[in-house]
């Protein structure tokens, strides 16, 4: 047994924390239940420190190559843990005041994050599957966490059914992969096995890949598996929606990146057109339907779908050329990172508003510049960033993808870039709708909004980060560049 315990430290700490939360919760009086949050927060931070200690420690392999901690994994682990900090921070007030089961919520949330943290290290079909389930299953539960609210319950059911269904399909694909590769479940060996697969198994292999992709397409809410997202986000508690929109879908991307760039890299000729179609359809549907939204969470959901489309585009840019693949990969990763920051910020701002306006219509943001200036400025920055307009970090995210698309060349790259460009322009329309409300309209109730300090802090930090990324995008670009998985395949 080759187990590198240091490499597994973050997971251990997180697992310990969530057990601790569960246990402590039992002994806490009702009024002190919120204490689970700082506890969890401490654990997450500790785990983050553990991740930090692994930086620069090279690639560490455990469990016979099924669990790998490399730059890619560290980057994503770090990302998830930071996300966890944010989600925990914005949850505190929301759950404390909403009459929720706080301890259990934090437990489930941390469990989900455990799954997230495992995801980027899992280089084995089984582990990927388990990690995915670990992310999803608590998600189903949390989506329905507003127990008295039909919306929330419906959200849970929808999310659950689609989730399980797609899991089943994915598993079916995995089982076929297992069969055609002669019993391989490790990603790297799958790649080797697929490299010289007999011709008569080719078709089945392709079908299997397709099945597997479906499972992840659901997770990242790609078209045509996107429709659960708006309903679920709207129905869920807002922090949970933030979690689903950021952590859960990024976890999906982390898994997808590993599968596509490691296990199925050799078959790119088959799946590139599929991803191209998928990405075009996803971004188009996301953006155009978002135009119609009047509710902020739904807007963010469709925006998230559109952003998923952009990220999926990087998959469609894969060719035989390793350099261009590396650009595509780095673009995707960088976009994911930036996307995470701005979306978290946007959800945090939404949480802030939800206290006064639980319905969260876009119109409820009216006059926010007066009632909550920090939130308003932050939200404006996030929206502009999501639209990909300077002076915000989102600009670089889009630029990197454009660049990768142009670099890929051929007819597909530029064509996709044009589609994305048109989509970007369309998206501006609905993104600007929010700042328009905040800055151009007057609020009905012009008194100052009371915003929890943690939420304000999150919004402020995210705003600064977004602007900082704009000024100094190098770190993000570098991070994305070094954490490449390209070349791990055949």
């Amino acid at each position, binding site marked *: 047994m080759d187990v590198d315990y240091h490499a597994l430290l973050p997971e251990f700490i997180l697992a310990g924390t969530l057990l601790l939360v569960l246990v402590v919760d039992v002994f806490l009086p009702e009024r002190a239940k919120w204490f689970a949050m700082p506890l969890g927060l401490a654990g997450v931070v500790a785990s983050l420190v553990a991740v930090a200690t692994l930086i620069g420690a090279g690639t560490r392999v455990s469990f016979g190559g099924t669990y790998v901690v490399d730059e890619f994994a560290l980057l994503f682990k770090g990302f998830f843990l930071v996300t966890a900090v944010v989600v925990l921070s914005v949850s505190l007030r929301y759950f404390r005041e909403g009459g929720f089961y706080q301890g259990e919520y934090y437990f489930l949330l941390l469990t989900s994050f455990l799954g997230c943290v495992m995801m980027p290290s899992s280089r084995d079909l089984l582990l990927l599957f388990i990690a995915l389930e670990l992310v999803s299953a608590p998600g189903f539960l949390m989506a329905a966490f507003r127990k008295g609210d039909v919306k929330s319950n419906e959200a849970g059911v929808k999310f659950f059914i689609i989730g399980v269904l797609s899991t089943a399909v994915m598993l079916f694909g995995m089982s076929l992969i297992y069969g055609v590769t002669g019993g391989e479940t490790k990603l790297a060996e799958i790649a080797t096995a697929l490299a010289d697969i007999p011709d008569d198994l080719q078709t089945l292999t392709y079908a299997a890949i397709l099945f597997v992709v479906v499972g992840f397409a659901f997770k990242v809410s790609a078209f045509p598996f996107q429709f659960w997202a708006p309903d679920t986000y709207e129905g869920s508690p807002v922090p949970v929606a933030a979690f689903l929109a950021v952590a859960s879908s990024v976890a999906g991307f982390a898994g997808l990146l590993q599968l596509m760039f490691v296990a199925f890299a050799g078959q790119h000729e088959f799946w590139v057109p599929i991803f191209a179609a998928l990405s075009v359809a996803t971004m188009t549907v996301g953006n155009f339907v978002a135009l119609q939204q009047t509710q902020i969470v739904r807007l963010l959901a469709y925006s998230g779908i559109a952003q998923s489309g952009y990220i999926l585009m990087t998959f469609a840019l894969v060719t035989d050329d390793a350099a261009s693949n590396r650009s595509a990969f*780095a673009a995707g990763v960088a976009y994911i990172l930036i996307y995470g920051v701005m979306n978290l910020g946007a959800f945090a701002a939404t949480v802030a508003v939800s206290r006064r306006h639980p319905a969260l219509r876009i119109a409820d943001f009216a006059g926010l510049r007066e009632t909550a200036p920090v939130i308003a400025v932050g939200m404006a920055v996030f929206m*502009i960033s999501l639209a990909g*307009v*300077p*002076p915000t970090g989102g*600009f*670089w995210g889009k*630029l*990197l993808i*454009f*660049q990768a*698309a*142009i*670099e890929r*060349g051929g007819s597909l790259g*530029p064509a996709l*870039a*044009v589609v994305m*460009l048109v989509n*970007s*322009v369309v998206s*501006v*329309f609905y993104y*600007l709708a929010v*700042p*328009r409300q905040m*800055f*151009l309209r007057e609020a009905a109730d012009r008194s100052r909004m009371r915003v929890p300090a943690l939420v304000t802090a999150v919004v402020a930090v995210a705003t600064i980060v977004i602007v900082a990324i*704009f000024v100094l*995008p*190098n770190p993000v*670009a*570098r991070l*994305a*560049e070094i954490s490449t998985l390209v070349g791990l395949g055949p």
Partner: protein
Amino acid sequence: MTWENSAITITTLLPVAGAIVIALMPKDKERAIRGLGIVVSGVAFALAVAIAVGFDYGTDGLQYELDLNWIGAIGVRYHVGIDGISLPLYVLTFLLSFLCAIYTWRFVPDPGRTRAFLALMLLLETGMAGTFIAFDLILFFVFWEMVLVPMYFLIAIWGSANREYASIKFFLYTLFGSIFMLLGFLAMYFQGPDPHTFDMVALRDFGAGGGFSQTFQLIVFGGVALGFAVKVPMWPFHTWLPDAHTEAPTIGSVLLAGIMLKMGTYGFVRIAIPFLPYGAEKYAPWIGALAAIAIVYAALACLAQKDLKRLIAFSSVGHMGFVMLGIATLTEIGIQAAIFGMVAHGVITGMLFFCVGSIYDRYHTREIAKIGGGMLQTMPKLGSVFAFVAIASLGLPGLAGFWGEIMALLSSFNPNEVFLGDQVGLFRLFMVMGGIGTVLTAGYFLWMLQRVNMGTLPDHWREAGLRDVLAVEWVSWAPLLALILVLGLYPRLVFGITDEAVSGLMTLLGS
């Protein structure tokens, strides 16, 4: 860091710093906010002047150059510098912004919120100034796009009735154009010299030397030109402009007309033509045609306008048509004329928008029919200033508006022989259209003056207490009025700066 290599960075970024400070000031310190706005933009202007003073006018190379690694991962550099083509526009940017800040001392459009107003204006200033000094395509694009957001808010918050439509139209339209430009930039990056670079100097040398294939140039020029054309705006991509201008607050209009439009034409001179000479050669007749159409078309459209501000906005389309016509000739004279035209248009039309803003401030309407004439009777100073600027705008020799127009026409008499030797007839046709345009231009301006300035004041305005030009207005206008005259009498002020740089450019293009 020496003054030499940090000067333009400091100058360009100073307004951003100012914007941050202003944004953090307490809301009730109204006067301090306005004062700080003036101080910041004033210092920036002073620095810009200092740069201009220290500029070596005898060379066509980049000066005050600074080239730092910015985003190594994708080859983006922070490369800034200034040459004869940039300098006039650069200084103009700071001048106009400074004057706008002064104007704001007295006039903050509804709904107030001076702090945000000034902060956005300063942000805008940096974006505009940055565009003229960027020598890295991505940096250029960043500055280019940075302008959008502040301007969007300036229009959307402080605009008039139809502001939301206008602002979003402005935003989407320009964004739409600029993304194609971005695609073009990226394409140049990958087709450019090895190792790939966004550096504008390297790409210029590469492109001017025929580095890009002809088909590539044709495609990419189209994309890049589209981005610039929307910004200029060239006919028929101009429709955002009247709306944006009409709705924007005075300051917004001044900066929009004064500087932002020049970003497009600057892009043609700086990027499109030298990088893609073959594309330029093939597109030039089309650009010329659109420019010529724009001149006549805008003039005719102006005749039909009932809204004073809209009229002036349309006149911008025509004036930019002259600029584009000059550029389309691909001659040294034409391009210099274009730059002069940019500066002159910035000064004159900026001033016109100031006037219209003040007229609106008095009458609370911009409809010519409602103003009803007789402005010279009650407000002789304002009326005289307005008339003076309008006359400058119609291209009267001896005032700033003339040189850009005459030289553009002059150059279109004989477009570049190397590139457009077989298009002489066509360009002479453009010249004739331009000439017709000048007559029509005179027509609508004089007609406008007749309807606004002349005649007798309608009775209902007699009691309105219309006040003539205020001290603040004089202060913020005087430099522009002086410039209109000085540029008209001493055009060397601009031509002397651009001459070396443009002839360097032409040498590079091999003609």
